[in-house]
């Protein structure tokens, strides 16, 4: 039960940390100043949420690792984030679709996790839900604006969907960890989230004149530590400083 809770909490923290890090790569590169700031604000929320989850994961594990040790001193195979989170930014369309698919999951997920029997997970979810509400609004609006925009923006958005779709199956994948924790009323049955997510995605894509791909093949692995080649590069950049200068302080 303790190791399942550790695994579950890591998964939530790692997904937020990695997608937050991805968004932070936009800092100074956004298409316009306002959207640059928006992406970085969202990144900040996600990294903040990751900090809460990883801090708690360290306490659950009880081996003296804090949030920094977990973020900066694990290798890729120990990360439990979903593969969608680590996919590269590519262009603005790609980033927005990745974010929308993620936010549309996080929102109903945190609504339920806020009532988890684990009080700390519930507290983090209650806090995060308020922030995710703004994220989902932002990514939904941009999905519609660009999908139903010019022929070029439409094409870029549809390409992003086609490329990223194979990573959405993993959002709802459950492992032994989920089974154990669902029994204790701690984890959320992801089968409950799936129809809500699908409904949201369908509604926004419809308004955006975008299409859901018909392919059913789904990529998997992140929740078990099997990652795409991208995660190693993210960690190399993210972990360089604390590994090269272990006691570095601001």
């Amino acid at each position, binding site marked *: 039960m303790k190791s399942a809770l550790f695994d579950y909490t890591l998964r939530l923290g790692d997904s937020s940390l990695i997608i937050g890090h991805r968004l932070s790569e936009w800092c100074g590169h956004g298409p316009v100043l*306002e959207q640059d700031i928006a992406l970085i604000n969202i990144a900040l*929320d996600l990294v*903040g949420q990751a900090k809460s989850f990883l801090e708690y994961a360290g306490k659950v594990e009880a081996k003296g690792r804090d949030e920094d040790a977990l973020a900066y001193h694990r290798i890729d195979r120990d990360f439990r984030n979903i593969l969608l989170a680590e996919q590269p930014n590519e262009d603005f369309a790609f980033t927005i679709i990745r974010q929308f698919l993620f936010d549309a999951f996080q929102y109903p997920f945190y609504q339920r996790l806020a009532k988890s029997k684990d009080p700390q997970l519930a507290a983090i979810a209650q806090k995060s*839900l308020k922030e995710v*509400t703004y994220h989902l609004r932002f990514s939904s609006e941009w999905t519609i604006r660009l999908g139903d925009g010019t022929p070029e923006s439409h094409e870029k958005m549809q390409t992003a969907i086609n490329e990223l779709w194979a990573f959405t199956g993993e959002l709802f994948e459950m492992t032994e960890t989920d089974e154990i924790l669902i029994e204790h009323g701690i984890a959320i049955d992801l089968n409950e989230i799936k129809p809500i997510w699908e409904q949201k995605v369908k509604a926004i894509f419809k308004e955006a004149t975008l299409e859901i791909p018909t392919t059913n093949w789904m990529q998997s692995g992140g929740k078990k530590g099997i990652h795409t080649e991208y995660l190693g590069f993210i960690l190399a950049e993210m972990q360089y400083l604390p590994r090269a200068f272990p006691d570095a302080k601001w």
Partner: protein
Amino acid sequence: MKKITKEAILETLEKVTDPEIPVLSIVDMGLIRDIQLTENQIEVVITPTYSGCPAMNVIEIEILATLQMNGFENVKVTTVLSPAWTTDWLTERGRQQLLEYGIAPPARGTVDKHVLFQEDRVVACPQCNSINTKMISQFGSTACKAMYKCNDCLEPFDYFKCI
């Protein structure tokens, strides 16, 4: 020797401000959730505005330093996440200070029901009080603010958004 009461501690904490909004004390922001007094320890319980608020570390250090300078010893700061901070906890004085500083205070009532597109909240310009304003972005210079502009006096301004 100062008498150690919750009121005295709270009064002292009014000197601590958010480094990103220096006109506003952490008391008026509603960040102080509790003060616990035991025989030999003072515990100040705080809550962050946003999960990633970069000011939290500084605020914690400021609380410790300010209390110590004012004669309170053995202070410990604890952070809690639940119940999650809401803009409803801003005091009336805090709202007034925000306005005078040029930041539009949050609309009353926690839940922003205007979540549907194009239905932005009506936010009055803190400079000229006009309600002919427009939201530029839901995300502003800090996590807790959105960017607006006034169509009458043409000034851009920050809006302290509801959460």
